[in-house]
């Protein structure tokens, strides 16, 4: 009796023992994948679907076909947002060389340099909401520091955030501040790992300054450059916080970007046009996809190279 009772248990244990290497990864993946599928993967498809409907968040969804997308191209606010996104992308790229510049400046071993490095990195740790408020204060008409400086030099101050031609650039500068800090820290780590013997060999061959940087150092910094470009592109396309805090898309809608305009259309007091908002989000997603697929292709290629 005792033997018979023990048998099935033994068999089940051995079934588990046989299969545990195939089953364990799936058991470990299950909770994370379930959460990720529910909150990230499924919503992407749901938004795609929604972009073909008229939906106010409460009432019935009404099928529109491609009408939301047709409306986009004749919507001047959308065109402005798209144009501003391009400006963001191009200007934001300045963070990469600027970060490299500061990293080279700080890559020394004098006393107290560690504190300098962390203080230069400081802006990245602060919330973009706070960064936005700081720069709003910096630009503020009549008493802002920048306004005063310009007034001192030219006799007439400029209220950057009130000028439709300048406001977007003003916000981008605020965004560049933490972004440069991020690129700087990436390059500082990269510089730390540059092979010293190669630098010395190149130095013996008479290489220095910019030539040394271009031919010897930059090739070795390629992984750091790759990540700096990835995070900068994503940062540029995600710009929402600063626009929302500093200008609310104004003056006259001149600082809207796709991420902000989508929010405005779908959730703010301008109405709850969630279908139309979803169409804007799909366009933003498509732009991001161009970059994501490039990044992922490179990462997969590296992955294959390593193994």
């Amino acid at each position: 009796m005792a033997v018979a009772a023990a048998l099935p248990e033994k068999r089940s244990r051995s079934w588990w023992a046989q299969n545990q290497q195939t089953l364990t990864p799936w058991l470990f993946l299950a909770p994370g994948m379930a959460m990720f599928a529910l909150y990230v993967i499924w919503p992407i498809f749901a938004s795609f679907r929604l972009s073909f409907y008229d939906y106010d968040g409460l009432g019935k969804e009404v099928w529109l076909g491609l009408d939301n997308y047709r409306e986009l191209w004749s919507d001047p606010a959308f065109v402005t947002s798209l144009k501003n996104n391009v400006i963001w992308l191009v200007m934001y790229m300045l963070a990469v060389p600027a970060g490299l510049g500061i990293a080279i400046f700080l890559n020394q071993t004098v006393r107290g340099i560690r504190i300098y490095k962390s203080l230069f990195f400081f802006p990245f740790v602060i919330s973009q909401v706070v960064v936005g408020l700081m720069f709003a204060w910096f630009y503020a008409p009549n008493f802002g520091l920048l306004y005063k400086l310009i007034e001192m030099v030219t006799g007439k101050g400029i209220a950057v955030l009130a000028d439709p031609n300048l406001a977007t650039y003003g916000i981008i500068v605020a965004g560049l501040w933490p972004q440069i800090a991020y690129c700087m820290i990436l390059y500082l780590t990269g510089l730390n790992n540059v092979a010293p013997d190669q630098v010395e060999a190149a130095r013996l061959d008479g290489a220095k300054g910019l030539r040394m940087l271009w031919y010897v150092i930059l090739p070795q910094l390629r992984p750091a450059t790759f990540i700096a470009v990835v995070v900068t592109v994503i940062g540029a396309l995600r710009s929402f916080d600063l626009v929302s805090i500093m200008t609310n898309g104004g003056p006259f809608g001149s600082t809207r970007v796709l991420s902000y305009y989508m929010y405005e259309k779908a959730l703010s007091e301008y109405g709850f046009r969630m279908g139309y908002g979803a169409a804007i989000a799909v366009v933003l997603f498509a732009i991001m996809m161009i970059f994501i697929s490039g990044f992922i292709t490179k990462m997969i290629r590296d992955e294959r190279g390593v193994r």
Partner: protein
Amino acid sequence: MFPRPIAQTTVAKRALYQIALPIALVIWLFPLLGVALTSLRPASDLASGNYFGMPSAIAWWNYLDVFRNTDMERYIFNSFKVTIPTVIGTLVLSTMTGFALGIYKFKGNILIFFMFVAGNFVPFQILMVPVRDLTAGMGLYNTTTGLALFHIAFQTGFCTLFMRNFISALPRELIEAARVEGVAEWQIFWYIVLPLMRPAIAALSVLIFTFIWNDFFWATVLTTSASTQPVTAGLSSLNGQWIAAWHLVSAGSIIAAMPPVLMFFLMQKHFIAGLTLGAVK
């Protein structure tokens, strides 16, 4: 080393560098210094146009006023209520996914891994409406729990990337040896891999803490009232109420920035190790 160490150059250059460092730092942190000074200026100075001169007093009471006149302590408490569960939840999920993807070879491994990586790059706006509806459907709209649940799911993408790369760099012989000894797979996770992951866990906890504390977009989408809003959203609505009260805006900003700043200075090594993952080969 690049550039050439300053110690190998002339005395003049060395002196120049020592002078340039603090000047560059002050210029770099100008907006921050300005706000810090404004936060300590009495309201009367601002009213009389004394923005940059000597303050007539050090108005540390501006900080007290922020707490006395607003829900600041509530906002900060809410931020902790979102941030701490997110850090814990994300770490639990991603050590597990990272272990599965870093140790086992199975069909679909790379595909699942890159699904996590790609999801991490997605613009928030494409998730916004469905996530808001989903949260409302679960009865969690305008709660810190609803906000934390979303953050846990989204951050799992980034953390899986990090954890998986960390785990696949561990020596494989350790795991093989344990298997030969007949150690069960979950025991390999618990007794062998997890203890070795301490540096990765430390790095990710500081990073996630900072990311979530500083999140503004999801806070505005998923919470609406002072009783649930975290400090970023709270600060934004206070900014609307405090028109031209720059001494209070400044003090509020500094208060909101404090926790991640402290975290950064206390755990700097881990923070930077996390951020620069992949920046070196």
